[in-house]
């Protein structure tokens, strides 16, 4: 029986190869005392010397295999071994408490790791903990006389499976043999995922249990596109993935060429395909994947894990970074969207029986101007640095939009009077995710600069079904004619007033929806970065004029299934989806 593990797709591609477990011997130790303190201090110093030698060797190897930058990651470890204060503290623990060298090292390492954990952390700062753990592991292996698993011992093509991978591990990988990586821990932006991307290896991180479920030599399929690992695949699965791997390799070449071009359909219409982002770390990923702008900047991250509201200045500095990072390209910022499933510690929102239909998003913004106003001021100030657009979430009636826009105009006037720079024109739009607003799109169109269809919520509200609830999730149907008719209505209403329409829900990245959306005239698509080049490549194959009959037949269809079959009939390259 094959086994499926899921994690985060950290670096895309598909690899099929046997597993090579990079799991070390047990380095756990117990508290122990020594009768011979001088001997322990000597052992400690020896382990420092041996570890330094070992790391210098690794540094040299990394330099040869991967270049200067990879070699530099070892420098932090070398500097730790060179730390006069650290060595002094360790010796004091041995002499003062009669600890063994091992125990002194453990106590000290734990002390620093706890310290790091309590800091306001980001992925970059995690690298400190990894460096310290790496040094500890190496010191202990010398003290205990055990060998660490050596990534360099690999002599055949394999997929490395490890709990976690340290910079010194990746620095030693032999490109000829490492086909892919799977880890128990780690995130998409951890140093090692970044390193793997430069190596162009398929990587799945954060599977939680890969090292306990996979045995050395097990045949693995690593699907770095979808974040899946198939252990001991069936012949059928193997065949399927061999085909996919071949296609992926071909697609990569085509996609790579698209990155710096415009997105134009076969019949010459231009589209914009942008990224949904939630943190500054996402920007680089968006660039690498050929984003033509940011179609949805979620601002919630500024408010997460905070004890008080972020100040206008704090927000301004962050928004400015997003805007400047995107240069001339448009960044559509959505004002704070909390409530529903998104709760924040600092707001004590009362319990609601039905939070998705409750006090959330712009409803909170309008009721609590002390939250909305500073955010709008910060956004307006950032607009002076590039192409910023602002949109309000969950607008249900034209009155709500007018009210929100009035507040924005008011803040704009105040900034003007205070002589603060604001862009001459800032596009102001709204999310279209409440069915009432979609039905009445023509009533909003004269007052907005653009609509952005939030398909996830729109579809949930339309079918009255929570897609997270597995018993009713079948009702969540992106291709259903009910959705398509509404989307068409919104696009037509906007275009009648000369306004543009985007879509920033998952439907925007669904290839089966793409021909329908382009042919109905959607102007902008925004999605997770990993989907962008796939969709851009697809659009370049579509001829909208030829797809008009598809639109007519899809709008008249009776089910999502019927629409899917129609799409596949008209667009043969989608038949495998």
């Amino acid at each position: 029986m094959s086994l499926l593990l899921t994690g985060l797709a950290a670096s895309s591609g598909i690899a099929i190869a046997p597993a090579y477990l990079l799991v070390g011997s047990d380095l756990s130790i117990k508290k122990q005392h020594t009768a011979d303190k001088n001997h322990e201090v000597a052992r400690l110093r020896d382990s420092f010397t041996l570890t330094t030698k070992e790391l210098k060797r690794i540094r040299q190897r990394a330099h040869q295999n991967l270049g200067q930058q990879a070699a530099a990651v070892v420098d932090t470890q070398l500097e730790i071994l060179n730390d006069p204060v650290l060595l002094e503290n360790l010796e004091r623990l041995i002499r003062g408490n009669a600890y063994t060298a091992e125990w002194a090292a453990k106590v000290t390492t734990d002390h620093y790791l706890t310290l790091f954990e309590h800091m306001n952390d980001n992925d970059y700062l995690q690298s400190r903990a990894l460096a310290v753990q790496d040094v500890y592991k190496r010191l202990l292996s010398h003290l205990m006389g055990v060998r660490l698993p050596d990534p360099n011992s690999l002599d055949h093509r394999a997929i490395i499976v490890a709990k976690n991978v340290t910079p010194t591990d990746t620095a030693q990988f032999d490109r000829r043999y490492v086909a892919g990586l799977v880890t128990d821990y780690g995130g998409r932006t951890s140093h090692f995922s970044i390193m793997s991307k430069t190596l162009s290896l398929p990587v799945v991180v954060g599977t939680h249990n890969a090292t306990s479920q996979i045995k050395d030599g097990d045949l693995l399929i690593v699907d770095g596109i979808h974040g899946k690992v198939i252990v001991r695949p069936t012949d059928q699965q193997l065949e399927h993935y061999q085909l996919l791997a071949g296609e992926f390799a071909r697609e990569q070449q085509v996609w790579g060429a698209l990155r710096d071009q415009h997105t134009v359909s076969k019949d010459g219409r231009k589209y914009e395909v942008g990224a949904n982002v939630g943190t500054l770390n996402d920007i680089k990923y968006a660039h690498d994947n050929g984003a033509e702008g940011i179609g949805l900047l979620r601002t919630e991250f500024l408010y997460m894990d905070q004890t008080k509201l972020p100040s206008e200045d704090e927000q301004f500095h962050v928004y400015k970074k997003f805007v400047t990072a995107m240069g001339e390209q448009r960044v559509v910022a959505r004002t704070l969207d909390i409530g529903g499933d998104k709760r924040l510690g600092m707001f004590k929102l009362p319990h609601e029986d039905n939070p998705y239909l409750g006090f959330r998003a712009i409803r909170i913004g309008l009721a609590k101007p002390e939250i909305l106003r500073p955010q709008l001021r910060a956004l307006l100030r950032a607009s002076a640095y590039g192409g910023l657009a602002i949109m309000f979430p969950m607008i249900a009636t034209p009155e709500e939009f007018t009210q929100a826009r009035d507040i924005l105009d008011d803040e704009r006037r105040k900034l003007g009077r205070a002589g603060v720079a604001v862009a001459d024109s800032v596009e102001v739009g709204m999310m279209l995710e409440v069915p009432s607003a979609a039905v009445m799109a023509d009533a909003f169109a004269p007052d907005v600069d653009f609509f952005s269809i939030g398909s996830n919520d729109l579809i949930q509200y339309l079918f009255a079904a929570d897609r997270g609830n597995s018993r009713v999730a079948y009702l969540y149907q992106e291709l259903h004619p009910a959705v398509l008719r509404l989307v068409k209505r919104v696009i037509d209403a906007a275009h009648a007033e000369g306004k543009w329409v985007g879509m920033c829900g998952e439907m925007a990245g669904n290839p089966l929806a793409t021909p329908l959306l382009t042919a109905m005239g959607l102007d902008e698509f925004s999605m997770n970065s990993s989907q962008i080049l796939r969709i851009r490549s697809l659009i370049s194959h579509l001829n909208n004029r030829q797809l008009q009959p598809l639109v007519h037949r899809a709008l008249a269809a009776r089910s999502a299934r019927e629409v899917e079959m129609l799409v596949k009939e008209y667009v043969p390259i989608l038949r495998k989806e």
Partner: protein
Amino acid sequence: MEKRDFTIIAETGIHARPATILVQTASKYGSDVTLSYEGKSVNLKSIMGVMSLGVGQNAEVTITANGDDEKEALDAVAETMKKEGLTD
């Protein structure tokens, strides 16, 4: 004694890489070099000390150098901070 204040502008703060380079720089000089942040002071020649301060973006830090080559040490540290994008 030489003393100077800095504002850290790098979004990532003083993470492992710049910490390593700062310590390497300070270690070249005989003077005692100290990094202070939020009332805590550490030896700038100790990477564990520097990393455990958790200096993030917008942090106001003070660096002091004390010894025969204090001026040169502080100049070198300031230059490294700038080169690594930690300060303006």
